[in-house]
C-alpha cells in the first residue's frame, strides 16, 4: 500500500513538473516536455553530477575530458570547449544537451533543433545550485536533495578534521608553471580556506592571476600545492626558490593524473579534493 502511494505521488509530481520551463545560467528560457532520456553533457563536473544523481545510463555522449565515473569513458566523445563536435551531438538525437555557459556551442545546437541548457559551475556554491537544477531538469528532485546533504556531510567531516589542526600554514597553489595561481575567491581558494590553509594571494588579484615569482619568494609559503606534471622538479629548480620554506622542508604536494580533477571540478566529489588538501596541510590522520 505504502509503495503504491509512493509510486502514485511520484507520478503525480512528474505530471505536474513537466512540461518544465527554467531559466538557464545564460538567462535563456528552456522548456522540457518530459524528463530527458538521452543526455549529452559537455562539462566534466556536470557529467559527474548527473551520474551521482543515478542517471548515468541516460548519458549518450560527453565532452573529451569527462572521465568519472569509469562507465562514461566508453561513451562517444563530443570534443571540448574549444573544439566541440556539434555534428556528432546532433547525430545522437539527444533530448537535452548540457553545455558550459562559455563558448557559442548552444547557438549551433539550437539551430539544429536541440534542447540546450547552459550551466555555470565555477564556485563552491555552484556545486549545490547545479545539483538542484539538474535534479529538476531530470525529474530527480528528491535524489538531488539527498545528494546535496551527502556532499555537505562529507565536506563537513573534512572541515572538522582540519579544524582540529593547530597550525594554519601559508599556502601557495600553482595551477600551471607560467606561473598561474588561484585567488581566495576562486573555487580552489575556498577549498584552501576550508582546509585551514592561508592563501598567500590577496583577493584583489582576481580568480586566476599570473603571479610574480618574487612575490611568492617574499611571502615564503610553508606549503606549495601544484597540479601539473613534473611540478616538483620544475619548482625546485627555479632561481631563488631553494630558499622558500616549503621547498626546503619538502612540503610540495603534487596532484596529477585524475587527482587534479578532484580539486579543479566543482562537482559531487568536492570532499575528496578537500581531503587531499587537509592531508597535505596537516598530515594524514
Amino acid at each position, binding site marked *: 500500500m505504502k509503495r503504491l502511494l509512493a509510486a502514485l505521488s511520484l507520478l503525480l509530481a512528474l505530471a505536474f513538473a513537466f512540461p518544465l520551463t527554467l531559466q538557464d545560467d545564460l538567462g535563456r528560457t528552456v522548456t522540457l516536455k518530459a524528463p530527458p532520456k538521452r543526455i549529452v553533457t559537455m562539462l566534466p563536473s556536470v557529467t559527474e553530477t548527473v551520474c551521482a544523481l543515478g542517471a548515468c545510463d541516460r548519458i549518450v555522449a560527453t565532452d573529451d575530458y569527462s572521465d568519472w565515473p569509469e562507465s562514461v569513458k566508453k561513451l562517444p566523445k563530443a570534443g571540448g570547449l574549444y573544439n566541440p563536435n556539434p555534428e556528432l551531438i546532433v547525430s545522437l538525437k539527444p533530448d537535452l544537451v548540457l553545455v558550459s555557459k562559455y563558448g557559442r556551442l548552444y547557438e549551433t545546437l539550437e539551430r539544429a533543433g536541440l534542447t540546450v541548457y547552459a550551466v555555470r559551475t565555477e564556485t563552491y556554491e555552484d556545486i549545490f545550485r547545479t545539483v538542484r537544477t539538474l535534479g529538476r531538469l531530470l525529474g530527480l528532485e528528491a535524489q538531488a536533495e539527498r545528494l546535496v546533504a551527502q556532499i555537505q556531510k562529507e565536506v563537513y567531516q573534512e572541515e572538522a578534521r582540519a579544524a582540529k589542526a593547530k597550525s594554519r600554514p601559508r599556502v601557495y597553489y600553482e595551477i600551471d608553471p*607560467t606561473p598561474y595561481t588561484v585567488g581566495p575567491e576562486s573555487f580552489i581558494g575556498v577549498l584552501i580556506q576550508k582546509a585551514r590553509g592561508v592563501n598567500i594571494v590577496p583577493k584583489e*588579484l582576481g580568480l586566476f592571476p*599570473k*603571479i610574480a615569482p618574487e612575490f611568492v619568494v617574499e611571502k615564503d609559503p610553508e606549503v606549495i600545492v601544484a597540479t*601539473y*606534471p613534473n611540478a616538483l*622538479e620544475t619548482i625546485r629548480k627555479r*632561481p631563488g626558490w631553494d630558499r622558500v620554506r616549503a621547498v626546503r622542508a619538502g612540503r610540495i604536494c603534487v596532484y596529477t593524473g585524475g587527482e587534479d580533477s578532484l580539486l579543479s571540478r566543482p562537482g559531487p566529489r568536492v570532499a575528496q579534493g578537500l581531503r587531499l588538501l587537509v592531508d597535505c596541510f596537516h598530515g594524514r590522520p
Partner: protein
Amino acid sequence: MTLSLPLAVRRGLVFAWLLFLLLGALVLGLAFGAVALPPEAVVRALLGLEENPIVTELRLPRVLGGMLVGGALAVSGAAFQGLFRNPLADPYLMGSASGAAFAVTLFAVLLGGLSPAFAQHAVFQHLPFSATFFGFLGALLATLLTLVLAGGVARTGELVLAGVVVGSVLTGLTTYLMMQDADRVRAVFAYTLGNLAFVGWAGVRALALALLLALPPLFLLGRVLNALQLGEETAKSLGLPLEGLKLLLLGAASLLTASAVAQAGIIGFVGLVVPHMLRRLLGEDYRLLLPASALGGGALLALADLLARTLARPAELPVGVVTTLLGGPFFLYLMWRRRGRA
C-alpha cells in the same frame, strides 16, 4: 634640436643617450618589482653584504635576461632589415621567430613525451642551450622558406606576405601541439605572448653565449649591409663574396632570434621598432645601427618587462602585450608616413 650639431657629435650623443637608457633600465629594474624593497636593501644585496635571493637570484638575472633578449631581437631585426633591404623585416614578420618557437616546442614534445606546454617550461629551466640550437635550425629554415616563397628579396610586398604566411602556419602548428593539453590554455598563451618570469642565471648564460657567437660577425659585417643597400650589383662590384656573407648574416640573425625565443617565448615588435627609431637618429649606417640596436633593444625590453611586472603587481601582465601595445601604434605611424611620402 640635435640636427644642427656635427654628425660625429650627434652620433656620440645618441650612443651616450642609449647607454644612459640602458643604465636607467638596469637601476629601475632592480629597484622595483612585485615586492617593495628599500633601495639600501637592494644595494646591500648586490654588494653581497646581505643575503637576498629576490635581488640576486630573481631580479638581477631577469633584468639582464630581458636586456639580452631585447638586444638579440633588435639586432636581428636590424640585420634582417638590412639584409632584405626592407624596412618591415623583423624576426616576427619574417617567420623566423615562429620557426624558432615551433622547433623549440617540437623539441620539447620529442624530448619529454610530456604534455608540450609543460615540457616547454622544463626545457627553459633545464636545457637552455640545446633548446636554443634546435630553435636556431627552426628560425633558419623558416626564413629560407619565406625567401623561397617570396622569390628572393626584391619585392617588398611579396616578402612581407610570404613571411606572414610562414609565420601564421608555424604559429598554428605550435598552438596545435600545445593545445594537445587544452586544460592548460593559459600556459600556451603565456608562451605565445612572451614570458621572462623565470629567466635565471642559466638562461642569462645561454643568451650571453649566443650573443657572443652572433654579434661579432654581425658588427663586422655592417659594411657589407651598407653596401647591400646600394643594390646587389653594386655590392658585388665592390668585390665582396656576397652569397657567403649573406648566409653568414642570416645565420647570425637566426641564432639571435632563436636564443631569444627559447628563453622568453614570442615577443613581438622589439625587432621592428628599435632599429627604426635608431635609423631616424643615426641614418642608414649599419656599422652604427647594429650596436645601437643592441643597446636600444636591451633598454626597451627591460623597461617593458618592468611595466609588465609592476603595473598590476603582484600579478604580472604578459610582456608581449606591453611590447605590442607600444609597438602596434608605432607600426601604424610608420605605414602612415610611408604612404605620405609615396
